Structure formats: C-alpha cells, structure tokens
C-alpha cells in the first residue's frame, strides 16, 4: 500500500498534444464532409495532398534540426495545420500549389521560429497568404456547388486536374465568382444588394452551398467548446465583431452593405472563429486579451471585406492580430490577488 495521500480529483484527464489535435480533427469532419459533398471530391484530394506534403516537410526539417522526428510527426500538429491550409484552397488546385503553400506553412510559418509553440503567426494562414499574393489566378479559380452548376468533377477527374493531366479550359463553365466576390464587385458597380442576390449562387442566407458548410463548421466548433478544447472568448468576440460592424452599416444603408447574416455565413468567418483564430500558440493568452483579440479579428474581417482589396479577409485579419498578441497580452495581465 502506498502511504502517499492523493487528493481529489482522482480521475485526471489525459491531456496531450496528440489528444488535442485528434479532437480538432474530429471537429473538422462535419464541415469537411459537407464541403466535399457539396463541391466534389477535390476538397478531399487537397487535404490528402497537403497532409502528405506536410509530413514530408516536417520530417525533413526535423531531421535537419536534429530533433526527434517520430515524436513530432505523431503529435498530429502538422496534419491539423495542413488540413486547415487545404480548406483555404480552391476546390481544384494543382499539386504544386499545395506543395509551395505547405512548404511556406511548415518552414517559414513554423520551423524558422523554432517549431511548434514558438511561431508568432498562424502557420496555415502564412502559407495561404503567400499563395494568395503570389498566384492570384490559381487562388481565385473557385467552382460552383453541384446544386448550382449541375455537375462536379468525379474523383478521377479531380485527381487528374490536380496532377495537371487535364486542360483547365474544359471546366471553365464550372468556375465562378464566389458569393463574397459577387457582392464586392456588384457594390463596386453601384448595383443594389437586392439585385445582386438574384444571382443563382445565392441561397437562403448567404451563398448557396456555402451557408450549409458554415453551419457544419459551427457544429464542429460547438463540439470543440463542449469538450473544452477551446475557450469561448475568441469565437464569441470574433463573431460579435463581425456582426456588430455588419449591423451598424446594414442599418445605415441596406442596399450598399450586405446583411450581418450574410457576412456571418459567407467565406471563412465561422471556421476562422472556431478553428483558426483559436490556435493556442498564436492567440492571446489572457481571458480579457482573448476578447480583445477576437473582437479585433472580427472587425478587421469586416473592414477588409468591405473596404479592402480582397473579397474575404480572415487570413489577413488573423495575421494582423497575431502581430498584436504580445501587445495585447502585456496590457491585459490579470491583477495579482492582493495587489492594486
């Protein structure tokens, strides 16, 4: 018998990095599957390619840095980063696009700073932004959901597309501006929102297809909250930021500013709020700081969408907020009990 007195709680949860990452992957499943169901299997090919490349880069860099390779590969952090990165890409992307993006995610986003836990910027967003500014043509070729275009690429067609075996022109009819894109260019041409929304890509709340994917991310995000993988501060503050900005301008002029619901369910707001902004390494670390951080990203997303050069701004907003994290943390340290 051990004579050591053990106090409660007697059942301690096993919290490891790997367990955390598995929870994130499970939470990503509903959204990913909905995305693939609505937009075709290209989504899954992107994720698979990104994961394979990510593991290759991770192993190579760990080897170069004389770090234990298997320990870091099996913590699944590379898989999660690659997964989130792949979800940012257009559904059908050539393999080299994924390779370059993952290279920047893993090397410039993570390992040059000293690896996982030391990176100031969200690695997946670093990779995505590098691609977005470097390959504007490839990164803006988005495809319509099957319910609008009437057809998606089959698995083998999508695979052939990824590896460059097929001519791009053939499927030009399937590609289109995203709902966010249409709203942005429409408003730029002085078209009223109610007229823009007559376009077939719009559904009940936001973009047809897109809105349901956002709901699926929400389910995954709520599960992350329930399992306490993430805290509520960042998602709530982020969504609040987007909604409050959108509401103010919507009430000012309903025909020039899209509704808050449209902004909430379009693009990457929901996945950004629950999966991207909540990255524990790059987010603020105090509770009040997390609220500031989330609010800042939310407001920035709206600002970039409405007055910026890009249709969506989640990646830029997250990177800009990442830069402010040391500053936010410095000014939101909780008061030590007993001190003034």
């Amino acid at each position: 018998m051990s004579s050591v007195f053990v106090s409660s709680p007697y059942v301690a949860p096993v919290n490891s990095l790997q367990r955390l990452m598995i929870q994130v992957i499970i939470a990503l499943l509903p959204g990913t599957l909905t995305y693939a169901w609505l937009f075709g299997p290209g989504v899954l090919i992107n994720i698979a390619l990104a994961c394979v490349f990510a593991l290759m880069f991770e192993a190579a860099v760990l080897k170069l840095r004389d770090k234990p390779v298997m320990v870091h590969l099996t913590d699944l952090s590379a898989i999660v980063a690659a997964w989130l990165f792949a979800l940012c890409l257009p559904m059908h992307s050539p393999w080299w696009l994924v390779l370059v993006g993952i290279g920047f995610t893993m090397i410039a986003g993570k390992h040059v700073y000293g690896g996982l836990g030391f990176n100031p910027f969200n690695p997946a967003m670093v990779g995505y932004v590098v691609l977005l500014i470097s390959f504007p043509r490839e990164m803006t070729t988005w495809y319509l959901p099957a319910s609008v275009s009437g057809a998606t690429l089959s698995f083998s067609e999508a695979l052939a597309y990824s590896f460059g075996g097929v001519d791009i022109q053939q499927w030009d009819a399937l590609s289109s501006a995203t709902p966010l894109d249409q709203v942005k260019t429409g408003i730029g041409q002085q078209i009223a929102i109610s007229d823009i929304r007559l376009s077939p890509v719009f559904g009940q709340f936001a973009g047809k297809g897109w809105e349901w994917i956002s709901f699926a991310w929400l389910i995954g995000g709520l599960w992350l909250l329930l399992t306490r993988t993430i805290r509520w501060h960042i998602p709530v503050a982020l969504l609040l930021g987007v909604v409050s900005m959108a509401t103010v301008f919507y009430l000012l002029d309903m025909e020039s500013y899209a509704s808050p619901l449209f902004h909430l369910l379009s693009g990457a707001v929901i996945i950004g709020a629950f999966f991207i902004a909540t990255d524990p390494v790059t987010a603020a670390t105090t509770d009040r700081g997390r609220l500031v951080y989330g609010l800042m990203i939310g407001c920035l997303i709206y600002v970039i969408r409405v007055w910026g050069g890009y249709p969506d701004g989640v990646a830029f907003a997250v990177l800009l907020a990442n830069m402010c994290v040391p500053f936010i943390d410095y000014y939101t340290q909780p008061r030590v009990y007993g001190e003034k």
Partner: protein
Amino acid sequence: MTTRSEITRNGIWSNNVALVQLLGLCPLLAVTSTVINGLGLGIATMITLVLSNSIVSLIRGFVRSEVRLPVFVLIIASVVTIIELSMKAMFFDLYLVLGIFIPLIVTNCAIIGRAEGFASRNPLGPAALDGLMMGLGFLSVLVVLGGLREIIGFGTLFAHAELMFGDAAKALVIEINPDYPGFLLAVLPPGAFFGLALLIAAKNWFDLRPVAQHQDASAVSAETV
C-alpha cells in the same frame, strides 16, 4: 597599413557591404527584382564608390575635421549627379526602370561610410582600390539576389538585357520553363527580404564550416586520446 589583398578580401567577402555591414539595404531590396536591374544599380554604385573614395582621399589633407562630413556629402552628391546624367544620356531605358534609386545612391550609407572610415585616412591608391572592391562586393550581391529573385519570380534570367547592352543582348534572355506560372512573392518586397536572409545565412554557413570541421577533428582526436 592594410595590404592590397586585405582590402580586396574585406571588400568582396569578409566585410561585404550588403551581407556583413548590411548597409545600403534600401536600394538592395528595392531594385533587385531582375539581374539587369541589380547589375545597373550595382555598377552605378561601384563607380560612385571609386570616384568618391578617390576624391575624398585626395582632399583629405585640406579639409578640417569639423567640416569633413558636409564636404563628403557634397563630393558624393556631385559624383552621383554626374552618374545620373550620364546614365540618362547612355542607358535611358534602364534609367527609367531604376528611376529614383539612381539619385538615391547619395543616401547609401556604404558610400559615406567608406569615405569616413577608409578614404579620409588613406592615400589615393588604397582608397580607390577599397572603393572598387567594396563596390564589387555590393554589385555581386545585387546580381546574385537579382538572379535568385528573377529565376524564382519570373522563371527567366537576364530579361530586359537590351536595356543595358543594346538590342543584340535580347538573345541573352534565358527562359527556363515557358509554362512557369511565376512566383510573385519573390518579386514583391517580401521576396527581397527572404532572398537577402538566405544569402546572409548561406555566407555565415560557409564561413562557419571550417570551424565546425576543426572542432570535429579536435573532438575525434580527443576521443582517440
């Protein structure tokens, strides 16, 4: 007294303006999007360095130390103006591409740094050699960085060579892969920072290598003992 080989080694490698002193980064980062741009600005900077170093060295006995900096600035500004006007006359297209960065050679800290640090204390010969070698070191980094960014960014090498060498030089242009989609990041300002960082890292790695081998050797000998 520094010898000629020391001046040469200092200028080109061990005290390289761009890779070690990190001076003149503004033109270095801004114009190196292609080899030819880098070469053009590099040559202009090199000529400026040689001329300003020579003149500063010649007048070093007449200028009181209280007024030396304004005098150096005047000399450098005159030299740069001469070069700018000559480029306008001889390579007008290249002059248009490099634009504001030609007159901005005046503000390149490397030039006044060499005038103050070397030319004002040495006779004409070493001063001119120092200007040439420092300029050559800067020029080579501009060309290598330009080449790196051009290959990655556009997939070409020596594009727009006709700006400098006349129409016959169009044959110099090497297109590595006609289907290359281009990598804009390398051409944009971040690419310059990435590229320069990689070059500095490569230089440091190269310099540290013999030391590492030496340490390995001593470690091995210690083990055998």
